[in-house]
């Protein structure tokens, strides 16, 4: 992937990510986070090679770059069997779509809610 146009999640270039900057204390772990844009470009590359599901995964990943570690862990937990009610999953999907700019993930959670309901693996109350 072309490195000259690449930006990290915090907007830095690859050139910025050097040992001097680390020594000077100018960089944090956040500066080494992959950006949504980069993940979408990786998705395009995967799709062009015939990996359309990997592309979808990378596009969902792109959406998750804007969500905190803690919330990502909570989302994962909510999708595990028997953790959420149907309403809770739908509310989560709405929040992902409306507040977190994550429409693909939202659709994925919504789909899970439908299937979980059909298979009876939601939390009952």
């Amino acid at each position, binding site marked *: *992937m072309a490195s000259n146009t*690449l930006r*990290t*999640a915090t907007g830095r270039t*690859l050139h910025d*990510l*050097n*040992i001097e900057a*680390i*020594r000077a204390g100018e*960089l*944090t*772990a956040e*500066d*080494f*986070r*992959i*950006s949504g844009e*980069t*993940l979408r470009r*990786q998705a395009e*590359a*995967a799709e062009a*090679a*015939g*990996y*359309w*599901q*990997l*592309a*979808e*995964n*990378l596009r*969902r*990943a*792109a*959406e*998750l*770059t804007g*969500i905190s*570690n803690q919330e*990502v*862990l909570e*989302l*994962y*937990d909510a*999708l*595990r*069997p*028997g953790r959420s009610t149907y309403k809770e999953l739908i509310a989560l999907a709405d929040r992902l779509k409306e507040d977190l700019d994550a429409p693909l*993930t939202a659709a*994925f*959670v919504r*789909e*899970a809610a439908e*299937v*979980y309901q*059909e*298979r009876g*693996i939601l939390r009952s109350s």
Partner: protein
Amino acid sequence: MRSKRFEKLAQRPVNCETFIKPWPEVGLIAVDSPLDPSPSLKIEDGVVVEMDGVRREEFDLVDHFIARHALNLEVAERAMARPSGEIARMLVDINVPRATILEVASGCTPAKLVEIAQQMSVLEMMMGLAKMRARRTPANQAHVTNRKEHPALLAADAAEAALRGFAEIETTVGVARYAPLNALAVLVGSQTGRGGALTQCAVEEAANLRLGFKGLTSYSETLSVYGTESTFIDGDDTPWSKAFLGAAYASRGVKTRYTSGTGAAALMGHSEGKSMLYLEARCQLITRGAGSQGTQNGSISCIALPESLPGGVRAVLAENLIAMMLGLEVASGNDALASHSEMRKSAKLMLQFIPGTDFITSGYGAIPRYDNMFGGGNFDVTELDDWYVLQRDMQVDGGLTPVSEEQVLPVRKRAAQAIQAVFHALGFPTISEAEVEAAITAYDSRDMPDRDKVADIEAAQKLLDGPLSAVDIIKMLEEAGFHDVAANILEMQRQRVIGDYLQPSAIFGDGFKVLSVLTDPNDYQGPGTGYRVEGERWSALQNLPQAWDPRTYLNSLGAVQERIWLEEIGPAERGNQLEVVIALSPVFGAEINHTIGGLDHCDVLSAVLQGIQDEGLPARVVRVHHTSDCAFIGCTGAQLSGSGVAIGIQSKGTTVIHQRDLAPLDNLELFSQAPNLDLDTYREIGRNAARYATGQPTIPVSVRIDNTARLRLIVQTTLLHLYETRLVESDRSPTELRMS
């Protein structure tokens, strides 16, 4: 009544294992359960309404996920209509490229994929692996753990594993709370050995994810998927939660691979009467559907279960092939202990080793089995040379590069010092000089000093809960003077933001060059194509530290110039007394002074002379110049002997008792295995020769039998004989010798 042979058979290692007859109803069947469905697919208005005989209304979680995410509906109807036998033949047809098969397989249901594999023998499946493996360059993964969770030993072992060429290094813990420290030690160690080895720490998913967020790990293969709904629920996940987790890892620039394997559902009691391979095909479609980069499959920790059944090992190969047909990176098992029998274990390995997979083992114990926290492991550090020799024997790349002790020791030392410096900078419990020293040369963690576990666990918790990340580690290493290690860890972090290693089959080659299905796609299409072990790589694989140059052996023999103790006193004449002639080969006791068994030629000759003297007979010593062949040397001696009996001795020690009226290649006694002869035997040979000369009844000399002698010494035998043969003077007559 009990046969002693059957008793021995019962004690063989392979019979420590359990072999059962199939019981399909509980899933104890490798392939073709009567309850396995036939392939079917019905699509209405772009929606799958029936798959493998199950109507949509009856779909379970797994069916729903596969129907919605895994199948390429654009090609599915055509793919399903194509006869399975035809697709199987495409897999072994070198004229059909990988891409064509990927497209067909993308429209196949689980039962269809199994039906294709079921047309194939293991040999044909191996051909399939060679073509369908995603990455052109095969690789291997290491396991690095130890019972004491000792950070210096973890770092040193990770460094050595990276140096040996492992592309990925996986660690885990005995006590879960150690995870952050183990991840840290393996990260620092791995990047000391060679920049670019990917690392992971296998722990519970949430903790795993947090380690990834911090940059302490760069890949994860802990995402288990299962072939039935009940197993999934027991595993506390669903295909959707796993797929979400996959996206979560990718969102932080962490490479991921799912894991599954034949036998898991049966082991967990939820097979629904389906065969192991059918359920695994479902797992692979979930893996593909979720958008995983790849899979760790090949039965993994369940391996002994399919192995208890007929066709089990073949089914495990079939699951590797099915995963590759779906385009996935495959870390192909061979990680958990597969047999008590070395023969069975190695034979099973060959199914993946010879064709090559993305990771031939999904965890080779780069540590002693004692310290392997993944259940002991299939192969361990003591078997590395076996692996190297197999690579060299077959000209096959098993992903490992031979290294010498001189290369390994400094790297282990530097890795232990690097983690020592990091612990110091972090204010974590000190790693002492004694611990560093012990880590350099340790066999296993019993050679390591004990640590304060409570303090270490506190430090681990601080690392996990606090803001510390890989960036802090880089800074500390840089400031402590470990510039190279800091630079490598920095590059690993930079690669996280580039994300090229989020593509299938990605590893780092030299100079952090990403080798993946995009940059290094497998282009095998028959002889002369695809990955070939040649050039520099073949040289590296040949160059075992223990391999020596045979020219030096000849030189060292030629250089030996000890005292001259055999003196030529003139042409050898035919004797006319009752005697035994000892006929020596051209350079016996001259340019060559020792037998292949290490006996001094002077001692050998003295022992033979002593034996003849024991029987009261005189002896003459002659040298034969015109041949180096033992039979002809003996035969020549017999012509010269007054009694007609002679002993012929070659430099390497091979000896014959000959008699004048016998054909040249006949003999009275032949001692062909020179390494097994000792001085007592030579004396007895002398004695027997004298008894033959005097016509007494004689019991042949009994010789110690060691059938490994030829195996061990055939090269040296060849070189000695070659040397002697070069010094043959074909037109020179025998000469009489005197000992001085």
